[in-house]
C-alpha cells in the first residue's frame, strides 16, 4: 500500500524538511525514474501537508484557473 503521509523519520533521513533537501532528493528520484525533478519536488512538498490541505491547494488552483479563463 502506498503511504499517504511521510513519517518524521523519512523526512529526517532524506532531509526533506527544507527546500534544498527536497530538491536534492527530487533530482535523485527524477534521474532514477526518468521523471521531472520539479514535479517530484512539488510532490515532496505536498507530502508535508495533510490530505485535506493537498486537496484545498489543488482545487483552489482549479478555481483560480476558471476565473482567469473568464
Amino acid at each position, binding site marked *: 500500500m502506498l503511504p499517504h503521509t511521510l513519517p518524521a523519520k523519512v523526512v529526517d533521513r532524506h532531509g526533506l524538511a527544507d527546500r534544498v533537501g527536497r530538491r536534492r532528493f527530487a533530482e535523485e528520484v527524477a534521474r532514477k525514474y526518468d521523471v521531472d525533478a520539479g*514535479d517530484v519536488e512539488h510532490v515532496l512538498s505536498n507530502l508535508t501537508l495533510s490530505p485535506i490541505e493537498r486537496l484545498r491547494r489543488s482545487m483552489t488552483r482549479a478555481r483560480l484557473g476558471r476565473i482567469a479563463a473568464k
Partner: protein
Amino acid sequence: MPDSDGLPLSEREIELLRELVKADVPFVLVGLGAAVIQGADTVTKDLDLWFSSIAHPGLDEAARKVGGVFVWRSNPPLFSGPGLDDIDVVVHCDGLQDFDTEYAAAIDIELVSGLVIKVLPIDRVLASKRSANRPKDRAVIPALEAAIAALKEASD
C-alpha cells in the same frame, strides 16, 4: 462552493460524505482527487466518487439529510442541491478491475477529523488515466508518474 473555514469542499459536501459513510454505502474516491490527496501535484476541480451500486438507498438518504437529492435518472447520476456542486458520481472507471476488487485494495484516508474514506491508490489512478487515454488524461500522466516515484522512494 467552499465553506468559510477554507475547506476545499462545502460543509454540505463534507456532511454528505459523512452520511454516506454512516449509511455504509460502499464508495471509492477515484480520479485526480484521489491522486492529489496522496500527494500528486496536479489540479482537480471536483471529487469523483465511484459507487458499487447507484441503487443503494443510502445515496438518496444521505443526499436528503444534507438538503439535496440524488438524481439517479440523470446520466451520469448526480447529487443536486445547495453546496453540492463539487462531488461527482462515477459509474464506470476505465482500466480498472471490478468495484469489489478495487474497493478491497483502496486506501483508508482521514479526509477531515472523524471522516475516513476509501481512496483509489495512485498507481491505480495512473492505470485508469492510461486506459482512458483522452488528451486530458494523457496530460496528467507525467505528474502521476512523478508522484508514484516520489512516494516509492520516500517510503523506502
